[in-house]
C-alpha cells in the first residue's frame, strides 16, 4: 500500500538531493575536518559551505551558526546560555504552548533551580496577547523564549516584535523556530533575535543534526564543553554527513521557499476545505490568518484521535493527534487545552502537516477516506446524537 505522509511536522523525508550530497561522506570522504592532512582537511570546506548555505537561508552570517545535534540541544543551549551570562536576572518569559524542548526545560528551571517563569497564555485562536507580553517582560527578565511557529497548530507568533520588547529591557530573545525554518522567510540580520533553534529533519535533511543561531555580540556560554569545534561553542567532532545534509536542505528550502509555499498552501487549503465540507461537527483549531502554509489541525467532535489515526493508518494515511491516548499521557495536548478547545473536540483533534512531496491525488484520497472513518467511529460513540435510551431503565 502506498503511504500518504501528512505528518511532516513530526519529521520529513530526506530529499533525494540531500541523500546524494551526503553519500560521499558516508563512504570515501570520512575524514575529520579538524585533521591536518588534506584527506580530512578538505572535508572542512564542505562544512564551511554548508554553514554558509544555512546562514543564507536565515539571513545570518556563517559565524553566527553553531551546529548541534538538533532542536532540543539548541533550545537548551540558548536558554541555559542566557541564564549563565545574566546571573543577576532570575526571570524567564515563555508561552504555555511551547514544544516540550522549551516547556519542560522551563518547568525544570522553575521547580529545581528557583527561576521565576512567566507563562504567556494564548486565546482561542492560539494567539498571544501583546499587552500581556509587554507586561511580563521586565528588567528582571534574563531570557524570553517564544516559538516562531507552533508544531501542533502551525500558528505563527510575532517573534521579531517580541524581540524588540526584550531588547528594550536588556533581556535576550530566543526563538524555537524548528517548524518555521524553511517554511517562512526569515531574515535574522534585521531582527533583535539573539538565539534561534532549528532542526534538520524537519526540512528534509537527516535526524541528529540541528543548529543554533547566536547573534553576533551575544554573550555565550557553551552547553557541551570539549574540543575547539564550532569556535569553542560546541565541543565534539562535527557530524559531517548531518551538517552537509542540513546545508543542502537549507539550499533547497531557500530555492523553493516561495513556489513551494504557494503550492503546499493550495494543497493544505484544499484538504481543509474538503474535510470541513464533508464532515459535520468539525473545526479548525488555531488561527487561519497567522499560520504556516503546510499545517492544519482539525477537531472532529465526539470521536477520539487514536481511533481515527488507527483507521487512517489502515488506509495508509499518516498524521498526528493531540489526543491523550496517542501521547502515552492521559491528558490531551497542552496546546489545545491552553487554547480552550472545547472538550467535545479536543480528544478528536488531528494534525495534518504537508510537504513539497505531497500531491493532489494524495489529498483527494484523504478527502475521500476521512468521512467514512469519522462516520464509522461516530456510529460507535455514545455522544453527539440524541440518546435513544434513558440512562437507567426501571423494569
Amino acid at each position, binding site marked *: 500500500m502506498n503511504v500518504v505522509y501528512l505528518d511532516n511536522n513530526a519529521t520529513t523525508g530526506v530529499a533525494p538531493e540531500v541523500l546524494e550530497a551526503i553519500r560521499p561522506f558516508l563512504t570515501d570522504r570520512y575524514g575529520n575536518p579538524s585533521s591536518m592532512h588534506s584527506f580530512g582537511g578538505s572535508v572542512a570546506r564542505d562544512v564551511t559551505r554548508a554553514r554558509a548555505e544555512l546562514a543564507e537561508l536565515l539571513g545570518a552570517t556563517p559565524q553566527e551558526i553553531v551546529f548541534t545535534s538538533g532542536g532540543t540541544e539548541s533550545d537548551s543551549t540558548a536558554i541555559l546560555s542566557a541564564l549563565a551570562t545574566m546571573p543577576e536576572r532570575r526571570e524567564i518569559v515563555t508561552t504555555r504552548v511551547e514544544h516540550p524542548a522549551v516547556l519542560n526545560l522551563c518547568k525544570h528551571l522553575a521547580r529545581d533551580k528557583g527561576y521565576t517563569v512567566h507563562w504567556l497564555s494564548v486565546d482561542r485562536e492560539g494567539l498571544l496577547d501583546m499587552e500581556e507580553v509587554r507586561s511580563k517582560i521586565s528588567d528582571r527578565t534574563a531570557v524570553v523564549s517564544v516559538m516562531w511557529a507552533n508544531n501542533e497548530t502551525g500558528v505563527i507568533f510575532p517573534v521579531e516584535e517580541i524581540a524588540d520588547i526584550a531588547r528594550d529591557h536588556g533581556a535576550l530573545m530566543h526563538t524555537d523556530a524548528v517548524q518555521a525554518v524553511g517554511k517562512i522567510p526569515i531574515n535574522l540580520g534585521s531582527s533583535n533575535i539573539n538565539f534561534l533553534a532549528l532542526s534538520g529533519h524537519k526540512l528534509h535533511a537527516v535526524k541528529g543534526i540541528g543548529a543554533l543561531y547566536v547573534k553576533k555580540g551575544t554573550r555565550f556560554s557553551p552547553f557541551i564543553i570539549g574540543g575547539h569545534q564550532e569556535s569553542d561553542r560546541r565541543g565534539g567532532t562535527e557530524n559531517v554527513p548531518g551538517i552537509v545534509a542540513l546545508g543542502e536542505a537549507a539550499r533547497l528550502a531557500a530555492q523553493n521557499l516561495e513556489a513551494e509555499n504557494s503550492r503546499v498552501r493550495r494543497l493544505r487549503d484544499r484538504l481543509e476545505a474538503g474535510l470541513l465540507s464533508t464532515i459535520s461537527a468539525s473545526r479548525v483549531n488555531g488561527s487561519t490568518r497567522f499560520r504556516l502554509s503546510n499545517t492544519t489541525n482539525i477537531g472532529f467532535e465526539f470521536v477520539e484521535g487514536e481511533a481515527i489515526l488507527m483507521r487512517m493508518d489502515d488506509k495508509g494515511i499518516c498524521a498526528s493527534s493531540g489526543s491523550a491516548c496517542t501521547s502515552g499521557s492521559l491528558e490531551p495536548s497542552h496546546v489545545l487545552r491552553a487554547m480552550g478547545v472545547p472538550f467535545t473536540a479536543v480528544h478528536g483533534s488531528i494534525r495534518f502537516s504537508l510537504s513539497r512531496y505531497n500531491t493532489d491525488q494524495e489529498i483527494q484520497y484523504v478527502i475521500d477516506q476521512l468521512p467514512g472513518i469519522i462516520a464509522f467511529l461516530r456510529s460507535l*460513540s455514545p455522544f453527539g446524537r440524541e440518546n*435513544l435510551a434513558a440512562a437507567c431503565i426501571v*423494569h
Partner: protein
Amino acid sequence: MWEYSDKVKEHFFNPRNVGVLEDSNAVGEVGSLACGDALKLFLKIDPETDRILDVRFQTFGCGSAIASSSALTEMIKGRTIDEAMEISNRDIAEYLGGLPDEKMHCSVMGRDAFHAAVACYRHQPVPKEELEGELVCECFGVTDEQIKRVVEENNLSTIEEVTNYTKAGGGCGQCHEKIAGIIAEVRGQLAQERPDVSRARRPMTNIQKITMIQEVVEKEIRPMLQQDGGDVELVDLDGNRVLLALRGICTSCPSAGLTKAGIEGKLKELVDPDLVVEEVAG
C-alpha cells in the same frame, strides 16, 4: 505507537455488538467526553433466569477502549449475571491477548460498565464504590474505593500502575500522595492477611518501634496532611496501639476516617503489620 495484539486490532476494526438495544432492561454508563473515553452498555436480561440474552455497546475512546468493549460483550453474552460478574478487568485484557500497561484502564472501564448495568438491573442506582468513595483524583473523577478495588484485584504496588489501571493521578498529579496512602493501606491489609509473604521482621523494642513510627509520621505522613491544611501528632504507643491526634483541618474533615486508615496502612507497611491506629483527642 502502541503495540496492540492482533486480537485488539481485530476487535477494533470489526467490533461486535455495536449500537443501542431498544428493549434493554439494564444500562451501564462509565466515563465521559471530558475524560477522553466513555462506554455505554445495554443489556437484555431474562428476569426468570438472570441470563444475559443480548448486549450492545457504544464507546467513545481509543483503539483499546473500543476493543475492550467489544470483547466484554462477547464474554458476557449468554452467561448469567452471576457468572458474568466473575469476569475481572484482567480477564478482559487476557481475552484480547493482553493490553499495553498504559491501556489497562480500558479493561477496567469495561468491567465497571457491566457492574453499573447490573446495579441498574437490580435497582441499585450506582455501584457502591462510586457512591460511597471519597474523590481522590479530581482530574478524572476517581474515588478511593475504586482505587482500592483495582489495587486489590490486580495486586498493584506503584502509583504509575494505579494510573495505568484507573487514570487516577494521570492529570495534575496532586493526588499522588493520597494514592500512595491507599496502596500502602491495601497492601498493609494484604500483608496482614498473608503474614509470611511480607518480609520477616525481627521483634522490636518499644523504643525502637516509637522511633520508627515517629520517623514515618514526620517524613511520610505529616507532609501529606500539611498539604491539605491538616496535621497529626503521635501521642503515645500502647503495645501495638498507636495513639494519634489529628490537627487542623483534619479534625473536621469528613474523610478523617480515611486519613486514619491511610496512616495505619503506612505504619503497617513501614513499621509493623500489627499496628493499629487510634485517634485520641489532642
